[in-house]
C-alpha cells in the first residue's frame, strides 16, 4: 500500500484521530496529515510497529500519548507533552517542543531536533526490555528528568548552546540517567542527583543512539561525537528515604 493523505485543515481532533485510527485498522502503513494546526492527541493509544504517521504542521498537545509502536514524524514544532506516557514507537520532531516532553514515558524514543521546554523527561521509567529514550538536539529548560525512575535523556546542546540552563535537573532521580554535553553548573543539579563525567566506554555505549539522531536530522556528526559529556545519575535508589520516620 502507498501513502494516504488527510487534509487536516480545520478538522476537529476527534474526527482526525478517528480517521487515523480507522486507516491503521484497515492496514494503512504510511499516513500523512497535512495542514495540521493544533489538533491534540494525534497517535493517542495507537498500536502498530510498522505504521508511520507524518504530521505536516504544528500538532497540539499530547502527541503520541499512550502510543505503542508507530512512528510519528512532525515537520514543525510540537506543543505540550509529546510522548506522554508513551509505551513504544518513535516520535521525531523537526523543530522544538513545549513543556513536559516525554512525561512518564516508558518505552520507545522521542527525538527533538531543537529545544524543549520545562520538565522534559519528568517521571520517565524503564522496565525489563523497555527503556525510553529522549534525545534533544538543542537545549532543555529547568526540572529536566525529575523523578526519573529509568530511561535515558540526552541533551546535545548543538551549535554551542548550553544544554540545560535551569535548576532542579534530576531532582528525585532514582533510576536511569541524564546525559548532557559538557557539564551543568552544580547549582542546577536537583536533590538526590549527582553529576559524573561520562567515560569513553559509556560514550561508546550511546554512540548508536547519537548516530541515529544525527542521521535522522542530517546534523554534522563530528561536533556531536567529539564533545565531552557528563551524566546525571541517582545518588541513591531511594532519594527521599531520609526524609521520613515512622510513627
Amino acid at each position, binding site marked *: 500500500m502507498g501513502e494516504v493523505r488527510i487534509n487536516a485543515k480545520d478538522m476537529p481532533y*476527534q474526527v482526525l484521530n478517528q480517521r487515523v485510527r480507522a486507516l491503521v485498522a484497515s492496514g494503512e502503513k504510511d499516513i500523512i496529515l497535512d495542514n495540521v494546526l493544533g489538533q491534540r492527541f494525534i497517535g493517542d*493509544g495507537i498500536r502498530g510497529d510498522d505504521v508511520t504517521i507524518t504530521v505536516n504542521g504544528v500538532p497540539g498537545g499530547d502527541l503520541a500519548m499512550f502510543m505503542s509502536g508507530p512512528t510519528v514524524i512532525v515537520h514543525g514544532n510540537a506543543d*505540550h507533552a509529546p510522548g506522554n506516557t508513551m509505551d513504544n514507537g518513535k516520535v521525531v520532531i523537526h523543530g522544538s517542543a513545549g513543556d513536559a516532553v516525554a512525561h*512518564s514515558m*516508558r518505552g520507545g524514543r522521542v527525538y527533538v531536533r531543537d529545544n524543549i521546554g520545562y520538565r522534559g523527561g519528568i517521571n520517565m521509567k524503564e*522496565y525489563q526490555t523497555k527503556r525510553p529514550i529522549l534525545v534533544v538536539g538543542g537545549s532543555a529548560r529547568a526540572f529536566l528528568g525529575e523523578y526519573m525512575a529509568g530511561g535515558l535523556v540526552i541533551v546535545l546542546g548543538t551549535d554551542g548552546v548550553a544544554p540545560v540552563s535551569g535548576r532542579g535537573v534530576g531532582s528525585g532521580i532514582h533510576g536511569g540517567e541524564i546525559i548532557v554535553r559538557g557539564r551543568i553548573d552544580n547549582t542546577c543539579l536537583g536533590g538526590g542527583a549527582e553529576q559524573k563525567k561520562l567515560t569513553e566506554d559509556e560514550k561508546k555505549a550511546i554512540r548508536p543512539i547519537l548516530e541515529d539522531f544525527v542521521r535522522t536530522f542530517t546534523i554534522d556528526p563530528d561536533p556531536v561525537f567529539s564533545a565531552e559529556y557528563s551524566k546525571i545519575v541517582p545518588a541513591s535508589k531511594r532519594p*527521599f528515604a531520609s526524609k521520613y520516620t515512622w510513627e
Partner: protein
Amino acid sequence: MSIGSTPLKYRVKIDTERCMQCKRCIENCSYGVFREEGDGIQIQSRNCVACHRCLAFCPRDAIEIEEKPGDYRSHPVWTREAREAIFNQAKTGKIVLAGMGNALPYPIIFDRLLLDACQVTNPSIDPLREPMELRTYIGKKPSSLDLRHLENGDVQLCTKLSPNLQIETPVMIGHMSYGAISLNAQTALVKAASRIGTFMGTGEGGLHESLYPYQDHMIVQVASGRFGVDINYLERGAAIEIKIGQGAKPGIGGHLPGDKVCADISCTRMIPEGSDAISPAPHHDIYSIEDLKQLVRGLKEATEWKKPVFVKIAAVHNSAAIAAGIARSGADAVVVDGFRGGSGATPRVFRDHVGIPVEAAVASVDAKLRQQGIRNEVSIIASGGIRESADVAKIICLGADAVYIGTSALIAMGCRVCGTCYRGTCAWGIATQKPELVARLDPEVNAVQVENLIHGWTLELAELMGAAGINSIESLRGNRDRLRGYMLDEGLMNVLDVKTVGA
C-alpha cells in the same frame, strides 16, 4: 539520647491458667511479641501493635491486650500522641509517617445526622414484598432528552448516552493498590465486587495479570506516577480514574518504598524491582483545570470514548468550585475523598490536619453543581470514613450517587485498624508483601466476607429507604429533607442544607 523509654502502648498478658502452650500466638504474631523460652512463652509487649492476630487465634482466650497500661501524666493539651511525636522528631528530625485515616477526635458529622422514617401521612414501603431499587448508574447523564414522537405512536430516542457503569448497590470498593495491599487481598475484594455487581479500583499499582478475569469490574487508576499505565491497561478497565488527590494526604504524592517492590509488584507497576515507586504531588502534565481536561480527553481518545473517566480529589476547602471545574472537563464522575480516608502510609501532619469531612464536601459539591445547572454532567462518588449503611444513606441524601469503601472492606477481611500498615508486616496478610503473611489471607474465604458485608449493607439500605417511603435510590439522592441535624451548629446546617431535629 536523653529521652529514654516511653510508656508501653500495650501490655500483652497470657493467663497461664488458661494457656495450653499450643504456640499459635508465636506462629501468628508477625511483630515478634512472643518467643518460646524454656517451657514458657516470653512476651515482649513493646513490639505489640494491637493487631489482635494472637488473640483471634488463641483457642483458649488466654491472651489479654491492655491499651496504655501506663500513661503519662494526664493533660488535656499535651496528649500522649503530641508528646510522642515530639520525642520522635527530637530523635530523628524527620517527617513522621503514620497509617490509616485521621486519628484526631474531631466530631463526626455522620453521627450528628439522623434519618427520617414515615408515619401515617405517608406510608413506609415494605422492602420484603415491594421492589426496592438500588441500581445506580455512574457517569454523565443527559440534562434533557431529545425524543421524536413518530406517526405510528413509537417514541424514538435521539439522544446518545455516554457510557455509564451500572452498579446494583451504591457501594463500590475504592482504590487500594497492589503494593499497598497484597494480591490476595485485591483478589478477594474484586471477587466480591464482581459477584455483587459493583466495581473496585486498582489503585495506582497497575493491574496484575491474575486479575484480568475480573477486569470488567475494575476501575483502573491513572495517578501522577503513571505506574502500570499503558494502552492495554486502559483498555482493560471498565472505567478509568484520574487520581488527583487522596483524603489521607491532600496535596502530596506518595512513595512506595523500594523494599516493597518485589518481582510481582515490579511487573504490575512496570518499574525495576527494588526501585522506589514515587508518585509526585501533582501530575506533571496537569498544572491547571484545562490540563486536566486535556488528560481526561487524552484518555477518552486513547480508549475511543468507550469508557467513563472519573477524577478523584481530596475533600478540601474549595472542593465545590474544583468539582464544578471537573464537571466541565468532560469527566464522567468526581470522587470526593474526605479527610478520614485511609492510607497505608501518610505523613501524620497531613493525615490529621489537612482536608475537610466528606459530608460537608459532598453537600457543597452537589449544591454547587445544581446551582450551575450541571449536576447531570457528573456522578458524585463519596469516600473516606464510610463505616456502615447509615453513612451510605446519609451521604446519598447529601447528594452522592455512590460511595467507595476502603477500610470497611479491609475490616471485613480481618483488619483490626491497628494503623501500622506502613510496617509491611501485616499479620492478617492484607498490607504486606511477605509471602508467608500474604498466604494467610485466603482470597475465596475473604471474598465471601466482603460480599457478605456489602450484601448486608444493601439490605439495610433497602430497609432504610422503605422506612422513608422511597423505593428508588434516585429519590434519596440529594433528598436532604429526609435528614435532620442533631447538635450541629447553624453554619454547618446551612452548608449541609438540613434542618435541625424537631424542625
